[in-house]
């Protein structure tokens, strides 16, 4: 049972001591992010289950409540996010081919688009606050109390069930927004090290991995937008 040995390569400064080479380190980082994204899917999955259950239980109330969301702002935000996914992909590409200037510009654009999304989301939340649509006693002194003339309650829809929709809306979009905020933080970290010139065609794994995260957060929104905003649009709305 003889043992033979594998020679170490001349090591890159970014190579951590416990990896054999950069290739192994890259594989581990990428797989780690994919596994993390699987946990994220399961995390959001609990809320998607609650959504499915209550939407099938209270279809009328959900359609009414959904029609009261601001579809224009939601659609603009969808476009903003899809475009940010494009700039993120450009950031990865430019890092891989070693175009540092283009890499920094792509990262800045992605951050700006991410912040733009969060700004528009904040405007939407503020509208809901003004219309007393924050569910339960989440905001003390501003209980859930929508104007019945604006909400157009049709037969079969109860205000309690409308509140259930808004709770799920805030839980899902709020959790999504939290992920966006973390994403902007990670991108700022990437930007800082890009300006310092850390990433190169040999070592660009952090850009790729954070890119994966960013695309994932975008995809969650791609599901949220139709499920929350486009529900029952065909029945008229306003």
């Amino acid at each position, binding site marked *: 049972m003889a043992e033979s040995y594998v020679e170490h390569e001349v090591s890159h400064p970014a190579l951590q001591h416990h990896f054999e080479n950069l290739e192994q380190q890259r594989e581990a980082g990428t797989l780690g992010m994919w596994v993390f994204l699987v*946990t994220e899917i399961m995390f959001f999955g609990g809320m998607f289950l609650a959504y499915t259950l209550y939407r099938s239980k209270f279809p009328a109330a959900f359609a009414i409540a959904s029609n009261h969301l601001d579809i224009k702002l939601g659609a603009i935000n969808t476009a903003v996010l899809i475009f940010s996914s494009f700039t993120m992909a450009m950031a990865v590409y430019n890092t891989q081919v070693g175009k540092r200037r283009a890499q920094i510009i792509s990262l800045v654009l992605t951050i700006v688009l991410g912040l733009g999304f969060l700004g528009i989301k904040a405007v939407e939340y503020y509208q809901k606050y003004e219309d007393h649509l924050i569910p339960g006693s989440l905001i003390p002194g501003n209980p859930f109390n929508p104007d019945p003339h604006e909400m157009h309650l049709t037969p079969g829809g109860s205000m309690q069930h409308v509140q*259930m929709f808004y709770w799920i809306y805030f839980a899902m979009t709020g959790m999504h927004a939290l992920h966006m905020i973390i994403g902007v933080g990670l991108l700022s970290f990437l930007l800082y090290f890009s300006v310092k010139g850390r990433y190169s065609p040999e070592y660009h794994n952090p850009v790729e991995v954070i890119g994966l995260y960013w695309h994932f957060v975008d995809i969650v929104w791609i599901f949220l937008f139709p499920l929350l905003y486009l529900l029952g649009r065909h029945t008229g709305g306003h």
Partner: protein
Amino acid sequence: MEEFIPPLPSRINYINAEYGLKSWLLTRDHKRIALLYLGSITFFFFIGGVYAMLIRLELLTPQGDLLQSTTYNKVFTQHGIIMVFFFLIPSIPATLGNFLVPMMIGAKDLAFPRINLLSWYIYMLGGGVTIYALLAGGVDTGWTFYTPFSTTFSNSYVVATGLGIFINGFSSILTGLNFIVTIHTMRAPGMTWFRLPLFIWAHYATSLVMILGTPVIAITILLLAFERLAHIGIFDPAVGGDPVLFQHLFWFYSHPAVYIMILPSMGVVSELIANFSRKNIFGYSFVAFSSLAIAVFGFLVWGHHLFVSSQSLYAGMIFSFLSFAVAVPSAIKVFNWTATLYKGSISFDTPMLYALGFIGLFTIGGMTGLFLATLGVNVHVTDTYFIVAHFHYIMVGGAIFGYLGGLHYWWPKISGRMYPDGWGRFSALLIFAGFNLTFFPQFVAGYLGMPRRYHAYPPEFQVFNVLSTAGASILAVGYLIPAVYLVWSMRYGKVAPGNPWHLPGLEWRTQSPPPTENFDYTPVVTWEAYEFAPPEEMEVVGKYHDQTAEKV
């Protein structure tokens, strides 16, 4: 054959490489983190054990004399929460798994050493928040937190306890993530998937359950906390919410969580049975894939906790069938272990006693699990001591026997010292006897109708409870003995050689305790798992390392 030369005490290893508190609290070495976990989970085990003793003492008599009902409710809840979330779930993966996964596959460390350390800090933070909740006034909902009691009616620290469990969940997720990535990307040259020790397969399956299940309990507890704090209505039937949705979400994690406890234990037992029979495991690939099958089926059976919770009868029938199905891969393991013993060269060292004990207890726990998967029987024994006995046979008899067996087996590697074998065998037998005396009478009491979670009970059940409390006292002594002699052996035990059991696994082909980077060189694997060479060749492996020790 020459006398075996023990490694020189001056040899640098992971324990004496650095000194001082800071070198431990900021370590990224998976072996040191394993020891941090070992200390912490032992601490929580003893807290949970104190609650267990309080329960058993109260139930010694039919009247509620030692504890009143409100206190008793908190005691059994806190026993469950501490034992499940802070001992059983991290027990084997975070200690033995952390220590051995990189060593068994020939890696220097886990893929993400900093995340590994972070997971320990998250565990400690979650544990700290939970202990705060216990000291502030405790929680009385049962470890299951059923709504609407937990959201509306309970006057105890539900949110603080939930927060502790929520935080702790992330340590479990990060451990699972680290194992999966490590097993995929860090295997030494020649260490193919089918040369992996079965301990690794079991940990791979466990990690899958950890990463797929734990996020669901995280979101569930978050929803529960919002419901309790802001009365959102999601679990409140008064405004259209569904309390059974909580049960579905809760058990979607908490049933697979049982497999987080038992799968690593099965991995340990596979190692022990093969190695102490000095025989290749019977049906390696069946044992390996049965771990994955248990992980997959484990996610499809949560509904058997809801047979009496307004679940549709058809759903109940499907969940019943799937619960029977999960017994198949479990039985494959038991049969293969038994077949491995056949004509093996068996030695009854302490770890082997635990492994054989595991097979016995797991068989009883698994068989009664089939009773519970049967719709009619389940309705009869729901919320009785029959359930309590069943899950203690699986979770305590299964998880703790694997944990203690593994701890003894790898103790020479972990500490560099041998434990006292006589005391080891004695306490293994004591724990086996104490365990059965504690929990077997509960099957009978439960079948006769004694309900769980009450501090008082009709006098005809007293005989079972007296037996059970007597058993628990024996069990407590049984747990204390290893705690004492393992600590003792760290200083006074016989110095352990690199390969005290003369085994082929990679973790035995380095010194005890291992150096910080585990191996002097990246090993190249040219042998199958459990490929036992003639004794002379095994000696050569040990001697090779002692020669390098002398050179350094």
